[in-house]
């Protein structure tokens, strides 16, 4: 079963992150690398993409004649996607277990950052033959 695990943040959160000490940043990054390797070794990690900060993000709508209308996006308090993981696991419980691990990444002083991780099942392009 494929799930997407999404980590969201706010501009305020990212600003706080930018003020972490270098050693806290490195510890966080080392943890991330180690967790990704673990998920990769277990054969569960399908994809992981970090997203760029949303300063350059645009929201696009089709204008007249499909000429895009673009709009810069983010008010201070709004949550945006920092990055996601796609995992292929045996059960929804396992997906949530992995999400809990992602949320427990170390922040300043090694305290878990407690980032909220949204867990959603990915739609399959298959149907069951036999049911």
């Amino acid at each position, binding site marked *: 079963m494929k799930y997407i695990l999404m980590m969201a943040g706010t501009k305020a959160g990212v600003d706080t992150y930018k003020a972490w000490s270098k050693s806290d940043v490195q510890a966080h990054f080392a943890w991330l690398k180690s967790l990704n390797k673990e998920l990769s070794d277990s054969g569960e990690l399908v994809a992981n993409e970090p997203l760029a900060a949303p300063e350059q993000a645009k929201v*696009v709508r089709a204008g007249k004649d499909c000429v*895009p209308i673009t709009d810069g996006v983010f008010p201070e308090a709004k949550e945006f996607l920092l990055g996601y993981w*796609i995992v292929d696991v045996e059960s929804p419980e396992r997906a*949530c277990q992995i999400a*809990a691990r992602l949320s427990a990444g170390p922040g300043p002083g090694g305290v878990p950052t407690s980032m909220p991780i949204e867990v*959603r*099942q990915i739609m399959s392009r298959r149907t069951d033959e036999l049911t």
Partner: protein
Amino acid sequence: MKYILMMNTMKAGEGVPGWPKKDLQAHVAFMRKFSKDLRDSGELVSAEGLSFPDQAKVVRASKDGTPVTDGVFPEGKEFLAGYWIVDVATPERAYAIAARASAAPGPGGAPLNMPIEVRSVLSAPPPEML
């Protein structure tokens, strides 16, 4: 350059659209062709649709690491419905692709004009991480 095009168009408490059958079929056909054209041009890296947020969970580790799971959301909270990741030469090309997705037909065949969020996908950790 990789970009993610996101449809943040699902809302908590909503269900599938109730359009007339032929409008639904036109929409599905449009989306199919849209993905196929991106595949054929070599610009499509991946695309996924997400299930309805009824089953969504948000998991947070508390300070001592134990997880807290929440499945209840305020009515009308926005959720990601799906995304495309494209690999293109310029941001303008990414916006043009997004505009086409945005123009997908809806009820009565009129373009839906969906808001599509376009963000860069990093190929390496962001500088502030290093």
